[in-house]
């Protein structure tokens, strides 16, 4: 039940970001589904592992779905990836790091700051993995 709720809210959230970045009408719902699936993966995996691993799997999912949709509909992959990536960006981590710095609690700030940094790295790794997969598939297809 909770997962369905998360899926619905993240779907609506991703659609909002899609309109903010001027994504064409017919691609909005598709990018919304990619983003919502990514968020659900994040929600499930971050419970069993941690936030960093969850973000990595979520970003990889969004990236791969984006590449597949891009191939199918012959549009740039970023149209489907970017709105799905935005909810994963560690805005909360940035906020809590700043809050700890203001409290002069440098241990907590270092803690939160490191987590934020590694979440950003995890997003990058997810994008790298999905891009790499699509590139290598393309290369294999060219050779044959």
């Amino acid at each position, binding site marked *: 039940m909770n997962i369905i709720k998360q899926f619905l809210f993240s779907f609506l959230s991703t659609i909002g970001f899609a309109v903010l970045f001027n994504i064409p009408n017919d691609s909005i719902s598709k990018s919304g589904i990619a983003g919502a699936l990514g968020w659900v993966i994040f929600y499930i995996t971050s419970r069993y592992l941690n936030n960093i691993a969850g973000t990595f799997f979520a970003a990889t999912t969004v990236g791969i779905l984006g590449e597949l949709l891009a191939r199918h509909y012959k549009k740039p992959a970023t149209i489907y990836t970017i709105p799905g990536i935005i909810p994963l960006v560690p805005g909360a981590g940035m906020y809590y790091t700043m809050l700890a710095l203001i409290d002069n609690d440098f241990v907590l700030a270092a803690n939160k700051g490191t987590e934020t940094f590694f979440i950003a790295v995890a997003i990058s790794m997810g994008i790298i993995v999905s891009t*790499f997969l699509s590139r290598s598939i393309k290369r294999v297809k060219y050779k044959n």
Partner: protein
Amino acid sequence: MDLYESNRKEAKQLLLLATLAGKIMLKNGAETYRVEDTIERLCRSRKNIKYADAFVTPTGIFLSLEYQGEMMTYLVRVKSIKIDLNKIDLVNEFSREFVNSHMPIEEGLQKLKKINKMKIYNGLIKASFGSLACAFFSILFGGTFLDFISSYIVSFIVLMTIDKINKHKMTFFINNFIGATLASVLSLFTIHIGIGQNMDIIIIGSIMCLVPGVAVTNAMRDTMSGDFVSGLSRGMEAVFSALAIAFGVGMVLNIYFKGLIR
């Protein structure tokens, strides 16, 4: 001789067309390899151009092509970067059409100019959907219905203000700084008048419309395709946007917690 002249003029126009297409894509947040690829495809689609090479960075496009032993070079400086993914898609479709048909270059230029002026959603729709996204995000973070409403109001005002500031062509740092400051001030205000309940969640939700998601994505995709200059500079853009947001929020919270605002 007459034939030669007209063809040479056409080659020059093709140069202009290719750089215009590249400029539209780059300005609206396309990856570097896509811009280079499009420019080269557009140039090579016409008969007597054997060699065409483009070097694209996030701040400029360099293009040279060879026409019957003569080198032609053109460079464009790209300044403002805003995100409009629809235009990338339209230019992509245009290049596919241009390469696979015998479209006159003049007509192609007209089409590109039309694409450049196009607006798919106006500012009001963008702001209302963007703030809807932020509001739903605050629910994802465990906010209540009242937090949803206050996050919606705060981010709507922030997005409208940024839209207004953007017309004066400020740098992204100032934009994000003002946006984050405004978001935290307004969030504190909603708490003060009793609409909002959780300060953390409202602020986090409202700054989500400012985070540099496009820059992070494009930086990584550029680096992976071997465009290290673009990857590094886009990465710097992402880092500094994040810093601007953090400074904006931090400044307001510092003043608030030190008791200067009551």
